[in-house]
């Protein structure tokens, strides 16, 4: 056999293997601590088995669907930061929830809650939010219908206060839920200041 042909016959499978190797969808999984320091856990499963990641920066690489996941390794923070640099920089600010409380049966903010409004406004400006949800709630004193009305008035009052302080009305989504979604569960007729509230989620 011609030497060239023999060479080709030998190298072709190697070349094909190398090409396949290149396009095999290697997957890397890395467990990270949450911003509050909490570390949950992740189970990585291929067709051949599964493995748990439970420590910060524990990672596992898999090359083929029938790869059996082996021992995870700890990725250095430097290596992680360079591998995921752009995704890290693209992370959005996590939404923040504010609670505002009201005087019983009214849409009048408690003095303490009135004081927190400027803090909220500062935060909205800081994160340039144009996506804010406002929802009104009541405790379980009074009838359902009355509470639906009060919760709506509370939500509208907060929307009015925010727009009067310069927040664009189009950024706001206003909803009201009456007494149906208490933070603190109580029997009907029981006053509960923590349920007389508006929840404001800034995204």
């Amino acid at each position, binding site marked *: 056999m011609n030497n060239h042909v023999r060479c080709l016959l030998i190298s072709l499978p190697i070349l094909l293997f190398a090409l396949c190797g290149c396009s095999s969808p290697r997957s890397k999984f890395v467990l990270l601590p949450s911003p509050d320091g909490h570390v*949950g856990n992740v189970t990585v499963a291929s067709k051949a088995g599964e493995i748990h990641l439970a420590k910060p920066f524990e990672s596992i690489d898999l090359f083929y669907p029938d790869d059996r996941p082996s021992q995870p390794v700890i990725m250095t923070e430097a290596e992680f930061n360079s*591998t995921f640099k752009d995704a890290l920089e693209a992370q959005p600010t996590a939404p923040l929830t504010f609670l505002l409380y009201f005087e019983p049966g009214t849409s009048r903010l408690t003095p303490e809650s009135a004081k927190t409004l400027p803090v909220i406004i500062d935060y909205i400006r800081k994160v340039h939010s144009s996506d804010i949800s406002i929802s009104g709630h009541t405790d379980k004193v009074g009838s359902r219908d009355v509470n639906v009305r009060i919760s709506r008035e509370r939500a509208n009052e907060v929307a009015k206060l925010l727009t009067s302080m310069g927040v664009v009305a189009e950024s706001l989504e206003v909803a009201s839920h009456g007494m149906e979604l208490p933070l603190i569960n109580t029997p009907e007729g029981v006053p509960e200041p923590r349920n007389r509230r508006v929840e404001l989620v800034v*995204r």
Partner: protein
Amino acid sequence: MYHGLCFLLLLMVYNCSTVFAADSDAVGRVKTIKGSVYILRGGEQSAANIDMKIVRNDILLTGKQGSMGIVFNDNSTLSLGPDTKFQLASYEFNALEKKAGFVGQIRRGTMIYLSGLIARMNADATRFETPVAVAGVRGTKLAIKVEGGDNE
């Protein structure tokens, strides 16, 4: 501690319903963008922009220098690095109907996910699929890189 947990749980229950009452189609919004970023929805590809709504089954694509960040209705966040293809295969978040679930498919590129209220409602309802494996995420932050995947 117990009261704290109760508070958190109730806060969570409440939040979900609020979001759903406001908009039942959008499940998240684009919050950060760099370079070229596209959303493929029902076969139509369009350039993504800030505050654009994300719906179920959207395919998110970033260019060679592109990246993007999304905040979902349950307050979970997702960011994608360059040359990434990600599909939001499933998203359920409705406290009143007790539905919670998040399934993402990353075909190539990099992503970082930080879990939100869905994970607190159902710890086993979040997973990410790559061409070779599936990651079940229980209330935490996870990064995935897929190399040499789908080049469409």
